[in-house]
């Protein structure tokens, strides 16, 4: 294990646009909406930025390639801008780039900004038909719901969980996120939903119904990072520092080797273990105060809580039904509504999760403010259960 970057980087400011079906805005307006808030929060001038990382996942339907769209939209002072894409982990990748620049000393102030403008495609859900010319010749005609539905099938098989129990547990995951999202003015969906509505919703990809799937949103989120020392010198209090950033990427063993049973995220287990080590966390179930995980689908969140080593393998569904992850539970998960309700503008999502952590640590989370959170963990999963990128970030009070 390398030395890591624990407490070498502090979040100086953050911003996040309103998420939703932003018919009023293109990617550019969304970028600026998050950037204005972020820059004002950081309290520095744009000219002080040394470098920027710009994340999108499906840029072919909005900004296109390269760092130019960010630089042009924000009129950045001709600094390095790196465009990153790593599926749903893209936002966290932009943050990682900016943090590593600061931790290395290459930059004093680095910007990470993620955006996705998906509601200009003419239809709901993510655009399909991507992949290279070989993939187009053989990979299954699948969608994200269909791929993650199979996580549910395999989980039930591996742990002998009945379809009814699982349906109730994943239903509770979504119910809880809707309860939380109702308290978030920036969330895409701000309405609490009855359990019966969730359980009886139309099937999208069996066994996942409509409420088991997060929608597609437009939005942007941004962070400016610096060192804790510089943050202090600028008179900042309640400093939030980065404890760990880890990423694990599938190498094809899950999708091609018969050793994986389909019921868990191999990468998330690895990334989270490394992150706890980097952050010096021995017992995550008692040390982490809150989670923002990648609940692209309700079952993803359920299984992820096991792979983050919080719930016991095969028992996560019981923790969920016990309310362990509810707003008033032992460890609140998706206190901002999660992807399910805050929304999922892919390139922005990792930064949106950090935004909530940042607000919570600073006591600025309004109606959904938790009591005295110390350590928070975010998690993104891009791809499909059989082949994915899994990123985790641990942030907390700088003490």
């Amino acid at each position, binding site marked *: 294990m390398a030395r890591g970057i624990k407490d070498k980087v502090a979040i100086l400011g953050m911003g996040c646009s309103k998420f939703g079906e932003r018919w009023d805005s293109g990617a550019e307006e969304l970028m600026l909406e998050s950037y204005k808030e972020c820059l004002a929060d950081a309290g520095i001038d744009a000219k002080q930025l040394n470098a920027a990382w710009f994340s999108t996942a499906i840029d072919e339907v909005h900004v296109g390639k390269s760092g130019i769209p960010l630089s042009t939209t924000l009129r950045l002072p001709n600094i390095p801008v790196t465009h990153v894409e790593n599926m749903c982990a893209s936002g966290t990748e932009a943050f990682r780039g900016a943090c590593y620049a600061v931790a290395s000393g290459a930059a004093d102030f680095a910007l990470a900004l993620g955006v996705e403008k998906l509601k200009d495609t003419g*239809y709901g859900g993510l655009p399909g038909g991507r992949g290279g*010319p070989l993939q187009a*010749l053989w990979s299954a*005609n*699948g969608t994200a719901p269909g791929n993650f539905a*199979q996580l549910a099938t395999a989980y039930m098989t591996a742990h002998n969980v009945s379809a009814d129990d699982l349906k109730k547990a994943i239903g509770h995951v979504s119910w809880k996120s809707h309860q939380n999202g109702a308290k978030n003015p920036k969330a895409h969906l701000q309405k609490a939903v009855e359990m019966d509505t969730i359980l009886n919703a139309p*099937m999208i990809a069996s066994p996942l119904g409509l409420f088991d799937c997060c929608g597609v949103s437009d939005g942007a989120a941004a962070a400016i990072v610096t060192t804790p020392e510089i943050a202090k010198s600028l008179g900042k209090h309640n400093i939030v520092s980065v404890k760990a950033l880890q990423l694990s990427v599938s190498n094809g063993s899950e999708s091609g*080797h018969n050793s994986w049973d389909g019921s868990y995220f191999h990468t998330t287990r690895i990334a989270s273990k490394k992150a706890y080590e980097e952050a010096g966390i021995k017992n995550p179930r008692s040390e982490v105060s809150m989670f923002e995980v990648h609940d692209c689908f309700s079952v993803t969140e359920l299984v992820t809580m096991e792979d983050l080593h919080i719930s016991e393998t095969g028992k996560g569904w019981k923790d969920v039904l016990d309310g362990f992850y509810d707003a008033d539970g032992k460890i609140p998960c998706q206190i901002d509504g999660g992807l399910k309700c805050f929304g999922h503008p892919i390139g922005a999502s990792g930064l949106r999760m950090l935004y909530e952590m940042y607000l919570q640590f600073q006591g600025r989370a309004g109606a959904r403010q938790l009591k005295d959170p110390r350590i928070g963990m975010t998690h993104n999963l891009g791809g499909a259960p059989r082949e994915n990128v899994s990123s985790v970030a641990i942030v907390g009070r700088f003490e």
Partner: protein
Amino acid sequence: MVGIVAYGAYVPRLRLQRQAVYDANKWFAAGLRGLAKGERSMANWDEDSITMAVEASRDCLTSHKAEDVRSLYFASTTQPFKDRQNAGVIGTALSIEQNLLASDVGGSMKAGTSALIAGLNASKNGGGPALVAAADKRLARVASSNELNYGDGAAALLCGTENTIANLVGHHSVSMDFVDHFRGDETDFDYGWEERWIRDEGYSKIVPPAIKAALAACKLKGADITHFIMPSLMPAVPKQMAKICGIADGSVRDLLGANLGDTGAAHALVMLVDALEGAKAGDKIMVVAFGQGVDVLVFEVTAENAKLPKRKGVSGWLARRKEEKNYMKFLAFNEMLPIEKGMRAEFDKKTALSVLWRKRDMIYGLVGGKCKVCGTVQFPRSQVCVNPNCHAIDSQDPYAMAGLEANVMSFTADSLTYSPDPPAYYGMITFPEGGRFMADFTDSDKEQVKVGAKMRMTFRIRDNDTMRGGFKRYFWKAAPV
């Protein structure tokens, strides 16, 4: 002596109920009531004459090695490609490319028998085993009798000189431009002349002399024929022809109209396979195909026929059936209904032909790899072994997986993705020998697809690139065993 060495067939799973077709169309064509009984085979949306021919060929090669085949003839009037050898696609799907003469035969309802004659002659002259595959998936206009009479299906016959199950006694052909019907290149549909004229001036005047000439060449009498095979859309005609030629009425084979339908250029061979399935040593089979002339072939069944290892054949595939009463689905599957497919159906299906060529054994042959270092079977074959405890580089030999059974590890029924037959079933399939991949399923129902279910790989259409004139992409899908 040259003859048939093995046979195989294929019939799509769906059986369109003729009553359902009639019920939908009787307001317009009440006269079709007489045809509103029984069922016809109906190709799934992902089947065409190539995929059906591949299945029939696999059935035929149950007992023989594909790599021994030296020539391959594909007969059809519905070949998916006008220029791109259709037989070559079949050959690649069967993993036979090297040392293979491949040929497409078409243009007539006797294409199947003409291909069989060519295959027998190729084998006879020291050309080695010849595989003759015939398939048709003909379209017919809404509310036409053809719509009710046609069926989709395929047959395959392996010709050779060793261990023949039926020896060729003789054959005779005539060719004359009698146009009972035609399909021009500007349409998908047949245009036919009056049936009474076809019967009286066509069949009655062209077929009997040809049969008599064949019998004479074979030194046989009509009464010697045990099985008389002659496809026709007019069920009385084969009986009339038999009678004229002294062939016993009881020898006239059933046209398989009640539960299959007329499979076009393939039908004479489909009926031949049907006959061979129950034929006894010494039986004499006459096959007659009519279409701008006549082909007549006469076979004598040998004792080897009883020893031929079991395969599905016509009866086996006919037994695998699912009733389909949804006429709208039939129209939609055949692109005869401007159905709202939604924007998700719009994505570009352009095929990189250079990639297809490089990866043809993977895509068309379902050939994976087996690591020489750790023995792990994997799909696709890759340069670095997928086994997390191996990762050897450049260590894999090709490993054919099309014939392996697989198990469902996980699956879903997806209502979001575009499928011509929603919901789309797909899932992770694992091979007991090693290897797995996320595969599309086909011919699948809710009742059959379960975790642990056994699946068989089948060669199917994946996409049709209509933007570029109809380039069909083929790949392997998993179907319940």
